[in-house]
């Protein structure tokens, strides 16, 4: 099924974006990325450490020909640091994609909307495709669209919690009120939740912990692939309207209850 997701001049053929953190080892991560069918994965920047050279993912990911890299700005405490991280990331990724994330509080890892907004303005001017990780706030989403973000990525629940689409009602409003793609990032645990996000009209989901922390990450990545494809197909098919009153799906003629 040819149903690409486009951001200006970039085209993705999978609506499942994958994070590369928390995997037990590089081999498991690569197997999961392949099984997911994704063509966009996130990576983080860290200081070079010769003693941990095996953590360097550039080599392994470069072997995946069709997979683009989207550096994130994790570790940034404010807009200035995030912009610097984005510039560094672009040097390596050779891609315009940047996952803008600024979450200074390690206890809840919730995004700082003010710093995120300020960084987004500058990064959009610098020709990045800015995909900001944000609270599920329709007003903020609209403001980020207005300053040129390529998408918005509201959280389903806090990072790594696996509490699913706890913000579903706000995400519905964001989908209704913004023109750029809405991508649920963070909080998902089960492929059914990814399917639900796509059924609601999200254009994609970004999943990391749910796959990396599964008993079998490769199999879970494949399950998320199916979930996303199913949800997208359902959204395109058009879900039936809901109704307060029951509506019978079989004829209710009373031919069985004769009075004779």
């Amino acid at each position, binding site marked *: 099924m040819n149903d690409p997701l486009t951001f200006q001049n970039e085209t993705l053929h999978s609506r499942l974006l994958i994070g590369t953190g928390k995997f037990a080892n590089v081999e498991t*991560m690569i197997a999961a990325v392949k099984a997911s069918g994704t063509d966009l994965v996130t990576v983080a920047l860290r200081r*070079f450490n010769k003693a941990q050279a095996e953590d*360097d993912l550039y080599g392994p990911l470069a072997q995946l020909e069709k997979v683009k890299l989207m550096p994130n700005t994790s570790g940034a405490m404010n807009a200035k640091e995030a912009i610097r991280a984005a510039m560094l990331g672009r*040097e*390596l990724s050779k891609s315009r994609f940047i996952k803008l994330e600024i979450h200074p509080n390690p206890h809840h890892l919730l995004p700082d909307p003010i710093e995120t907004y300020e960084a987004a303005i500058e990064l959009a001017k610098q020709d990045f495709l800015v995909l900001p990780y944000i609270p599920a706030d329709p007003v903020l989403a609209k403001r980020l669209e207005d300053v040129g973000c390529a998408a918005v990525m509201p959280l389903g629940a806090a990072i790594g919690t696996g509490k699913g689409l706890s913000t579903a009602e706000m995400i519905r409003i964001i989908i209704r009120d913004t023109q750029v793609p809405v991508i649920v990032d963070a909080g998902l645990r089960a492929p059914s939740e990814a399917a639900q996000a796509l059924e609601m009209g999200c254009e994609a989901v970004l999943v990391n912990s749910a796959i990396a922390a599964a008993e079998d990450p490769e199999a879970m990545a494949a399950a998320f692939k199916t979930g996303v494809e199913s949800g997208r197909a359902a959204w395109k098919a058009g879900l039936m309207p809901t109704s307060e009153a029951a509506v019978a799906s079989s004829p209710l003629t009373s031919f069985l209850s004769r009075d004779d």
Partner: protein
Amino acid sequence: MQIILNGEPHPLEGDYTLLALLETLEVEKEHTALMLNGAVIPATSWHKHILKENDEVEIMVFVGGG
């Protein structure tokens, strides 16, 4: 002289460009992004920057992240 390399003091004897520093450290250059005193330096310019006393160099690589 001494520079600050990834936040730690690092002694250097003689003149070094950024490129020479990376080669000394046996860093995979294609896998690396560099900052010098807070500014991102593109790989095409690494050979032009000669390090000075107390320069702050950050050598960054991609690792797993969500």
